[in-house]
């Protein structure tokens, strides 16, 4: 397809049933192809990020999706991206960090890990426990650009800050 472009659509709004079906059928009917997507409920809100291939400009894409987004009360943002499919990086390390919830924990942990060569491909975090005693849980999949041992030592530093952390190598089986 010549002249097709990739866009990144972000849609955020209060979670309700049928959001995904409504949004994706509007896109389909408007002539869009879906690429990679990530959709998740966060704190009662639903957030979607979709790679969309569309044979038209930003204005035309807005015409395809604006009405649906508005009727679902979704905040919409569209970026033109230099994206492409089949550009996956395979993670080779999984890191889990958890501890009593406190300010700055994510910044501290990810900062130390980034310095040790961690390239984050996927991060999800949650606050568990109770309102009085919240527990912070973070799960990262990434690529260890400088090797696993450096990351292990970095995690030891993180643990001295009073959180628990574990690291598993991801050895992808191809068969």
């Amino acid at each position, binding site marked *: 397809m010549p002249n097709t472009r990739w866009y990144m659509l972000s849609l955020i709004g209060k979670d309700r049933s049928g959001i995904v079906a409504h949004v994706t059928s509007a896109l389909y009917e408007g002539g869009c192809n879906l690429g990679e997507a990530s959709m998740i409920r966060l704190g009662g809100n639903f957030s979607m990020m979709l790679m969309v291939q569309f044979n038209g400009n930003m204005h035309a894409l807005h015409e395809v999706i604006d009405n649906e987004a508005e009727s679902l009360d979704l905040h919409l943002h569209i970026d033109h991206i230099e994206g492409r499919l089949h550009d*996956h990086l395979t993670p080779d390390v999984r890191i889990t960090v958890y501890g009593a919830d406190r300010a700055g924990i994510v910044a501290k942990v990810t900062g130390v890990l980034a310095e040790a060569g961690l390239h984050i491909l996927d991060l*999800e975090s949650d606050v568990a426990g109770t309102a009085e005693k919240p527990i912070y849980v973070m799960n990262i999949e990434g690529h260890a650009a400088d090797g696993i041992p450096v990351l292990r030592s970095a995690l030891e530093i993180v643990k001295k800050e009073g959180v628990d952390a574990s690291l598993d190598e991801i050895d*992808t*089986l*191809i*068969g």
Partner: protein
Amino acid sequence: MALLNILQYPDPLLKQMAEPVEAIDNELEIFIRDLEATMRAGPGGVGIAAPQVGILKRIIIVDVSSKPKIKQHGRLVLINPEITEWEGMAKGREGCMSVPDYTGNVIRAKNIKLSALNEQGEPCEYDMEGFEARAVQHEIDHLDGLLFLDRLVSRHHDLFQRKVYK
């Protein structure tokens, strides 16, 4: 020796049940040699199953000896393999030569007992664990028309979420 063509999903042959091998003859020996060459030609492939090249026979080859420091049996040709015991569960990442450009998390048994015929047609038994056990389970799935895509779990899937408290 010939390299065989690896079928890719959605080829319907990948979703079919393979038939047990009845006799090990010269033709089969040649096929096994070609199947192994095909596995080794693929980047990083540690196993292959006959249905991946369109032959619906219960034959797999596994060789995880490229991974140092793990318990394993080296190069294995397994004919009519059957898992007789499973123990434990572990989540690990898998990809497949028949599903290019995708990897995902799959839960497999940690330890298995396996019976199969070797290339000479002799019955053999194996105790396997970890990565090798995972490879064998992935390949035996191919014999039953299953891909790792049929067993994907999300990355935050908790192995113990269905634990029963007594």
